């Protein structure tokens, strides 16, 4: 058996509590507070204590999906990304970049948010970028 803990930052609210994820043989099995964390100081709320639970839920999406005749069909990454790339390119060429809009995510990392707005601005050519800060 291999057991390890990984120090990270909670994915729920804006407090940003540091916590340890407990990993047993590659599976998440728990979350523990971090005493030296400046925000949580060794405490966690009920969401933090259970933050590992949703991750391995059986309803997680595991494969790209493409809708055909109103039904989702599993697809390969190549199929899915080529579809997205060609449709976005086509709409951009035919209708202009401002006909495309992007929502970045308050749940994703800084790095991912940076890249998606870069994709919108530098690749598609639009400033139609927002996220749910207001919601």
């Amino acid at each position, binding site marked *: 058996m291999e057991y390890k803990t990984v120090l*990270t*930052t909670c*994915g729920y*609210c*804006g*407090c*940003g509590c540091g916590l340890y994820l407990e*990993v047993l043989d590659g599976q998440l099995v728990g979350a523990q507070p971090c005493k*030296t964390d*400046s*925000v949580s100081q060794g*405490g*966690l709320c*009920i969401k933090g*204590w259970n933050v*590992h639970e*949703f*991750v*391995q*839920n059986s*309803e997680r999406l595991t*494969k790209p*999906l493409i*809708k055909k005749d109103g039904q989702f069909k599993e697809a390969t*990454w190549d199929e*899915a990304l080529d579809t*997205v*790339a060609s449709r*976005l*390119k086509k*709409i951009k060429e035919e209708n202009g970049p*401002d006909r*495309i*809009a*992007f*929502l*970045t995510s*308050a*749940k*994703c*990392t*800084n*790095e*991912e*948010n940076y*890249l*998606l707005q870069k*994709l919108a*601005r*530098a*690749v598609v*050519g639009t*400033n*139609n*970028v*927002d*996220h749910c*800060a*207001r*919601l």
Partner: protein
Amino acid sequence: MTNSIAEIENSKCIFIIGSNTSEAHPLIGSRILKAKEKGAKLIVADPRKIQLSFYADIFVRHQLGTDVALINGILNVILKEGWYDRKFVEERTEGFKEFRKVVEKYTPENVEKITGVRAQDIRKIADLYARSKSSSIIYAMGITQHITGVDNVKSLCNLAMLCGQIGRESTGVNPLRGQNNVQGACDMGGLPNVYPGNQPVSDGQMAEKFEKAWGTKLSTKPGMTLTEMLKAAMAGEVKAMFILGENPMVSDVDIQHVEKSLEALDFLVVQDIFMSETARLADVVLPGVSFAEKDGTFTNTERKVKRVRKAIEPIGSSRQDWDIICDLSTRMGYPMRYDDPSKILEEVAQVTPSYGGIYYDRIETEGLHWPCPNRAHPGTPYLHKDRFSRGLGLFHAIEYLPPEELPDKEYPYFLTTGRIYVHYHTGTMTRRSPSLNKEVEEGFAEINPRQAKELGIIQGERIKVFSRRGEIEIKADLSERMERNTIFIPFHFVESAANRLTNPAFDPIAQIPEFKVCAVKIEKVNH
């Protein structure tokens, strides 16, 4: 937040308005209680009798949407009694005269008529806040989700500036961000009008800088907000949307309208970890990963950039979100390649002055508060020390405006929405967490017990709630937390979605919807 979370503990007075801190931000809630233990005075203003109100030195329940009036009343007393910080006002602010003229009208007696808060309580709040050595204001969506959201925030800034309760330790104006990285999403330019680091897209020099960094031509025309995107989708002006990890089908106002707008699109891509209500409408769904399967950084509500570390491998064939975006970009003819997320943050540091000194090797054990302009900079726990970003702090003369929709004969009650301690946003994660879901499995409408009695509603009974936008069926929860004319519904539950009822009226500047106030009627369900 202008100030850091740790500083809360040493505040001498904490004014909490429009934040149910102990439920929505529990670990900040416990800091507030620590401050209280150390002798801080606690002021709570909230239409609901929230948990923290039981610890408050003074608790007032102002009528929904009357925040500006309440704050102006407090300002009025402080001016009249001369409790303000003359030196701070003279040296660090402007616009005082016009501001004073407006505030003079808001005597505590006038404000009592608007807010329902007793004049003597308004005086007591003014006294505690203005005369404490260090006072800290804490607020959340209860302040911002109004058609006067910007006015509400400016009013709080007026209060902090008037009393010089800003730019020092344990003071400040401190909004609590609801989602783990909403601060970071804003910082990274996830907004229609700014590049990363709040640098305006309409500023030609900024555009030039980013054109150079990204090696391409950029548009200087500000883009659309989410609300505008949906409107444009409905009108056929937006043809395609790419939605990363967001679920506006539950979180947005008036979701019947959201659904129609998303359905009107030619092409919708959703990148998420679950088949959310929004993902169901997509043409292509891309499986990203959760925070436990990726490396990166989050920026919390106090502007602290903290590490996120990969604990397990991606589930199934799902892929790291940053990697999916790079791949897509490359397929669209703009090669994007990074060895790992640390290299992306290095690029951020190059183009974003406030993140200029934030690198992975500096935040391995402890995060850094931005602004952190260079590698030697220790970060900035509190802002506005010697000057405001614009130089002098600007007082705003702000008049009270009522909410867009008020109860009337047909829809006689106020509805307000919010969160509960065990669930998070649209529930896609917490409702799939067995331990959390068993705490609260379904939505409910909190109703004052006397109100319920008048309507013949008993605890746990199914009721229907109607607004001009839609209707939902939901369980009644009789609770003294509510006043007689107001009900509360948490927005986490899609099957009894509060946002079928909420009013799509928006703050003209921030475009934030008025989630916190609308008018509803209630009926018993007779099965």
